[in-house]
């Protein structure tokens, strides 16, 4: 998968990255997700050691400070979160971390990482080592997720340095958010 070339913004474009870049936001797949009229619900991770990748776009320099996932009604085992570029190279990740806290967000305090508009197309990534743990996720009918550009990799826990992307076959899109600021 070749990298997309950087293109200078043209006058009149509404290209910005907000404080929070989420799977549900404009920079990601929020618009088509809204068109499927469902909200995230507590759902078991679909396959042990499966990594899922949700596309988002960077318009200007944006420093990542934290990563949020939302746990569902049951937590179990370990998770890993991170960001990849569109060549499948891992830019930053948390490493294996115990899933903690039911029905609440879990904050992953990553080392500050500057995302660059020279690599505009990136992926929010999450992997879990079991199928007992649940997260808040959209569950649209397949192949909806794949048609939004959601990708996956099996046997990918913890998140590997290089991902081998495949189209997601899951009816599952995890609710993930990057934050540019830490909120107390």
């Amino acid at each position, binding site marked *: *998968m*070749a990298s*997309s070339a950087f*293109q200078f913004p*043209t006058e*009149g*474009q509404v290209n910005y990255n907000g404080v929070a870049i989420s799977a549900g936001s*404009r920079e*990601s*797949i929020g*618009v*088509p997700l*809204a*068109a*499927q*009229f*469902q909200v995230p619900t507590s759902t078991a991770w679909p396959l042990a050691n499966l990594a899922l990748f949700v*596309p*988002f*776009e960077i318009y200007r320099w944006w420093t990542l400070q934290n990563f949020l996932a939302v746990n569902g009604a049951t937590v179990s085992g370990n998770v890993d979160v991170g960001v990849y570029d*569109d060549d499948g190279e891992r830019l930053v990740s948390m490493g294996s971390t115990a899933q903690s806290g039911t029905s609440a967000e879990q904050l992953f305090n990553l080392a500050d990482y500057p995302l660059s508009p020279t690599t505009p*197309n990136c992926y929010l990534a999450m992997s879990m080592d079991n199928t007992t743990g649940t997260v808040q996720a959209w569950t*649209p*009918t*397949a*192949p*909806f997720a*794949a*048609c*939004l*550009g959601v*990708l996956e990799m099996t046997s990918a826990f913890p998140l590997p340095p290089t991902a081998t*992307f*495949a*189209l997601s*076959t899951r009816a599952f899109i995890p609710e993930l958010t990057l934050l540019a600021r830490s909120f107390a």
Partner: protein
Amino acid sequence: MLPVINSFSFECLGVHIGSRVHAGGSAPNSATWPSATLALGVPLNIDRSYTVKSTFTANGAAAAGNTEVSIYTLGGLQLMSTGAVTMSGTNVPQVYTLPTPVYLSPGSYMMFMGCSSTTAQFLRLSTTATRNAKMMGMAQIASGPPLASQVTLASTTSTYLPLFGISNYTLV
């Protein structure tokens, strides 16, 4: 823009769907194509150059006949087409890699999907009323696949809004 643009994206009808269809809307589901040799089109507005390397349809519970994804100017001139492609696979995206990538400059286009069979099923959204589809700028071509290189775009008479699109990757 994200690498994958589909009919529900910001660049197409995503915002329209949220504002017009939501009140009476339901989640996309698999449904039979509304009419044989009909192509349905959505506006495609891009603010930067974009290279189309592949197309896809969201195949539903039954595969039959041929499909085609094509992009036209607003005047009905065909800029890109997959040609008629045998529909294959159920409940999966069917990806077609273009032999030669097609460059689109910033601007407004119409992105069409056609199917030859009313047995075929695709993941689609119902606009609940034809007027909603018309108000969002949907159009149709009454003949195809195969779709002609120059057509007259007509206002849609369907409530069928298929999930389909283009990608500047070869992997959707």
